[in-house]
């Protein structure tokens, strides 16, 4: 809502600086967006009168104009032609500045010096109009500063009005709050309308068939109008408020809308069939072409304004083109009505049509403002357009809504606010904003909210009014008194640990979108049935790119890697902890917490021997996780999964359950994303990991010495190191403390298709020193176990 300071002061005699008042109001009622000084940046622009216009000898597209500035007649070269001798125009003198910082100086145009510049409305930042020079009113004094003539000495304050306060969508509404805040009187004059015409009932009729949708409809008839353009002062206020002047009649209804917050509509009486107004529900599929020349299709819940034959307006939103007021219009039917907020909101939303009227009706107009707003329009019409107001009004109201009193418990209000406020102060604060405090006792007030405050319905609403008028700033700062303990749960602590561990492995944290594209799996060449094809699709997505809930985190990380590589980032190392989604058995989908990681490009470390990442970097991250969380029984089993390199990946198995996958991305997929080299990736479900995490224990430090023995086993390539290790460990018996793989050898000594795995076994007894014989005997068992599987011990 944009409010001119001069307009505001018509209703409240405020003397303080506009900026200060706006700042204070922001703290008490309505958020300040900005304060604009109109005409800011304009200097040295004065009123001139065109003396004569001659062609430029060198150019067809410009003319030479002699302009009388009151002190001299100067020659100006001008590119516009929309004026003639006698017209008053804005003249930027040499040395003048225009908004945006443009400076005017004398300069030659095709050989002839221009002693200044004539300005368009756009050059003065008045409007977007650049079709010609701005013509000033004929009474504008020569040589006067255009800022004064154009009302640019005014200040416009823009407020961000919350949706619960329709009353603040008006100059008077803002003025009422200013008056309450500053302790000043609020005055809004009652319009006086001399009714001289025939009885209105002889000129038109009003029937309301949809009283739910239209609880009140008031019409007046005004005849003999001259619909020219509205006066400059009115246009200036409309423009300052962000509206475009159209014609006197339309401008007047808009002016009253801005002044009082009540929307009105003028129909050309001659174009109304009957002339009669019928308010009814729309027929499903009924059509009307609105003022903006768009054909609208209606639903049966829409409220329609019709004449005797056809629809003439979408109630409370926009009039129809057929009955629109034009410059030829002399007689009008003026509508001032109250429509059901929810019905208007639903229609406006469905039609995608948001107007000054619809915004006010859907937030709740003031049913009691209906006659006053119509009268104010009549008053201005008589003043500006002449004419005669028909006697009486057609006022159809189903039933006057009864104001509902609200009881305010004084003690409870003070307790809720947290500061003790005397009852008398509460009563006077509420009174200052139009509340009717009808009776009070020692403990409570009985308050009737005014009809323009549909948002005030319960005690807490009054508490808010008191708190803000008392000023939030003055309310003390206290803390709740009850003692309590906060903290993180085990899972929340462990999740932070997981983050720290992953950061420690050199991965940076990503946050990718939970919404993905259904075409991504196609781009990656995945089969029709694949875990990365999300099955949960939004009903009305904004774009296909973000329309499916992610079933896994890795696709998002792949896209992040793709973006980084495309931006010439050489090394990508990312992880993400986030929610993944799958269809559930219940009404809600199944949500799981997942952790994924990805490494691509060059490994940082530069000169130490640059190399790319591979599968062991991926398993390294998994190892860091299991070590960090203290998980013992996690294993990685060879697997087939199309996303991964067929021979460099594994299933992650925890307590017999498959919880994820780790390995290298399939080169085909890496190629599809233009990621060079091997891409190390992994993803596991986090909740089973957190559940398996162990609590800290104090380990026993061994007191007796250990015996170490090494053995190298030659096995087929596909035997699997983890399996060989477990054979070795099992055969080594109870005395083995650890089995550590320390060398992997492929080559002549191992043989074709074979690999030599060297293990270091550590034997120890907890109670005594072990003998060499015991270790030797255990190693013998290992040797025979290896032999039983057809493997060889490398000598």
């Amino acid at each position: 809502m944009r409010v001119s300071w001069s307009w505001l002061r018509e209703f409240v005699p405020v003397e303080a600086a506009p900026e200060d008042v706006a700042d204070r109001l922001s703290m008490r009622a309505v958020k300040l967006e900005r304060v604009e000084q109109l005409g800011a940046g304009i200097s040295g622009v004065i009123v001139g009168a065109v003396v004569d216009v001659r062609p430029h000898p060198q150019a067809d597209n410009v003319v030479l104009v002699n302009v009388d500035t009151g002190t001299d007649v100067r020659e100006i070269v001008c590119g516009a032609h929309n004026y003639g001798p006698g017209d008053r125009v804005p003249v930027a003198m040499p040395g003048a500045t225009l908004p945006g910082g443009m400076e005017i100086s004398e300069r030659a145009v095709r050989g002839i010096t221009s002693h200044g510049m004539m300005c368009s409305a756009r050059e003065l930042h008045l409007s977007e109009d650049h079709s010609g020079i701005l013509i000033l009113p004929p009474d504008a004094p020569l040589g006067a500063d255009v800022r004064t003539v154009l009302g640019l000495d005014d200040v416009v304050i823009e407020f961000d009005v919350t949706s619960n306060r329709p009353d603040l969508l008006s100059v008077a509404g803002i003025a009422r709050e200013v008056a309450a805040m500053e302790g000043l009187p609020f005055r809004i004059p009652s319009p006086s309308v001399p009714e001289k015409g025939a009885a209105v009932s002889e000129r038109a009729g009003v029937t309301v068939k949809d009283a739910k949708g239209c609880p009140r409809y008031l019409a007046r008839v005004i005849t003999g109008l001259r619909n020219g353009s509205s006066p400059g002062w009115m246009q200036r206020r409309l423009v300052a408020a962000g509206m475009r002047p159209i014609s006197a009649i339309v401008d007047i209804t808009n002016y009253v809308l801005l002044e009082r917050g009540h929307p009105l509509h003028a129909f050309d009486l001659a174009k109304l069939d009957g002339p009669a107004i019928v308010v009814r529900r729309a027929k499903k599929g009924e059509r009307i072409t609105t003022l903006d020349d768009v054909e609208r299709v209606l639903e049966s819940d829409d409220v329609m304004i019709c004449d005797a034959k056809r629809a003439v307006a979408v109630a409370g939103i926009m009039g129809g083109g057929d009955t629109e007021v034009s410059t030829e219009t002399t007689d009008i039917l003026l509508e001032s009505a109250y429509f059901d907020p929810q019905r208007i909101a639903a229609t406006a939303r469905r039609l995608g049509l948001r107007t000054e009227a619809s915004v006010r009706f859907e937030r709740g107009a003031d049913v009691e403002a209906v006659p006053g707003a119509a009268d104010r329009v009549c008053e201005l019409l008589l003043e500006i357009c002449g004419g005669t107001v028909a006697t009486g009004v057609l006022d159809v109201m189903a039933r006057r809504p009864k104001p509902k009193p609200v009881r305010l418990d004084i003690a409870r209000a003070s307790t809720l606010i947290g500061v003790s406020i005397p009852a008398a102060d509460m009563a006077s604060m509420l009174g200052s904003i139009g509340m009717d405090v009808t009776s009070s006792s020692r403990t409570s007030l009985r308050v009737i909210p005014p009809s323009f405050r549909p948002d005030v319905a319960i005690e807490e609403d009054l508490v808010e009014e008191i708190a803000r008028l008392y000023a939030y700033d003055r309310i003390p700062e206290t803390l709740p008194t009850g003692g309590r303990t906060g903290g993180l749960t085990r899972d929340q602590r462990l999740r932070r640990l997981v983050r720290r561990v992953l950061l420690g492995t050199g991965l940076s944290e990503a946050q990718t979108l939970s919404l993905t594209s259904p075409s991504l799996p196609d781009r990656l060449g995945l089969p029709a049935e694949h875990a990365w094809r999300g099955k949960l699709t939004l009903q009305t997505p904004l774009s296909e790119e973000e329309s499916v809930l992610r079933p896994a985190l890795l696709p998002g990380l792949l896209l992040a890697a793709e973006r980084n590589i495309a931006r010439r980032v050489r090394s990508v190392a990312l992880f993400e902890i986030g929610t993944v989604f799958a269809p559930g058995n219940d009404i809600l989908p199944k949500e799981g917490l997942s952790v994924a990681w990805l490494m691509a490009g060059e490994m940082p470390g530069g000169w130490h021997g640059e190399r790319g990442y591979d599968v062991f970097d991926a398993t390294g991250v998994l190892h860091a996780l299991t070590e960090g969380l203290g998980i013992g029984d996690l294993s990685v089993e060879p697997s087939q999964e199309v996303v991964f390199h067929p021979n460099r990946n594994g299933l992650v198995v925890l307590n017999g359950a498959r919880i994820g996958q780790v390995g290298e991305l399939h080169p085909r997929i890496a190629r599809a994303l233009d990621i060079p080299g091997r891409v190390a990736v992994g993803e596991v479900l986090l909740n089973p990991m957190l559940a398996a995490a162990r609590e800290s224990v104090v380990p026993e430090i061994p007191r007796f010495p250990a015996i170490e023995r090494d053995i190298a086993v030659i096995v087929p390539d596909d035997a699997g190191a983890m399996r060989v290790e477990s054979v070795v460990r099992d055969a080594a018996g109870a005395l083995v403390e650890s089995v550590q793989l320390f060398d992997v050898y492929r080559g002549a000594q191992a043989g074709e298709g074979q690999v030599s795995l060297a293990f270091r076994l550590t034997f120890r007894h907890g109670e005594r020193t072990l003998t060499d014989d015991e270790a030797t005997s255990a190693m013998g068992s290992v040797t025979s176990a290896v032999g039983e599987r057809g493997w060889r011990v490398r000598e």
Partner: protein
Amino acid sequence: MSDIAGLIQTVEREQVAALERIALSTKVAELEEAEIAAIGRKAPMSALKRELGGLSEEDRRTLGRLLNDARLTIEAALDGRRGQLQAREEEAALQHDSADITLPPRLRAPGHPHPISIVIDRIVDVFVGMGYRVAEGPEVETDFYSFEALNMPADHPARSGFDTMYLSEGVALRPHTSPVQVRAMMEQSPPIYVVVPGRCYRRDSFDASHSPVFHQVEGLAVDRGISFADLKGTLAEFARALFGPEERVRFRPSYFPFTEPSAEIDVSCPTCHGAGCASCGWSGWLEIMGAGMVHPNELRAVGYDPQDVSGFAFGMGVERVAMVAYGIKDIRQFFENDMRFLAGFAG
């Protein structure tokens, strides 16, 4: 007698020769040769020792002592010289084994946390310090938890498919973390102090200040006698903890359907400390959160009696707070995961 005198002379000669050779050695390897020559199995002194058995008791004792002394002397000389030579050789080797300490280190550096996570943890930690526990809940919710229990009736604009991303009738991605507050209230009776971080969704197209996916931290305190003054104290304390004690906090009236009275909270701009600059639109203030006293309808919806308990709730956009705290201009940067962007964050 001449026999023994000759033997003594031999020992003395050998000792002198050995000591000379030791002193003249310039490498540990030469020294080892000198050692073998002087006291090795084939050395003359070792041969003499083997001949002791054929001497008289007295001669044997004299020569034995002499041999022993000579050996000790030679060994001491060897040890001394060896020490010198080893030190010299190590010194020489180290001269060739130099490293440029200013080259990049080998150890892999830790990664960088995401600014959203940093900010969530910091916000959560402030409230945990004030005795709040952390509540979490599903990202897909029913209309009851997302709207109805929050005093947002069926015709509320936010409930339309224009603003909220629906999966099916009445089931949508949560537009705020408030459903978790509702669940927390339904699971326990007051007193309740929770802080709720999480991911939320709104049907917004990406631009510099909008993202369809974003994060919120909301909080809720419901207890006997909770007042607006408590809300002010708690959130002022929080804002100072997050933005620094030198920043100022102010509370402005506002409107939210689920609170009454409602407030918006501004913090003085961390860039200009209230003087006005481009990042605060020359106002000196930045809006960081919304708050208010829990609407009685919301308390009733979860079975609480608004005459018995009261509460306050607050909520803030994590991206917004992070943008204010770090001076980030474009919300899209949070979700691009550019390694160079992430590299800026620590903590």
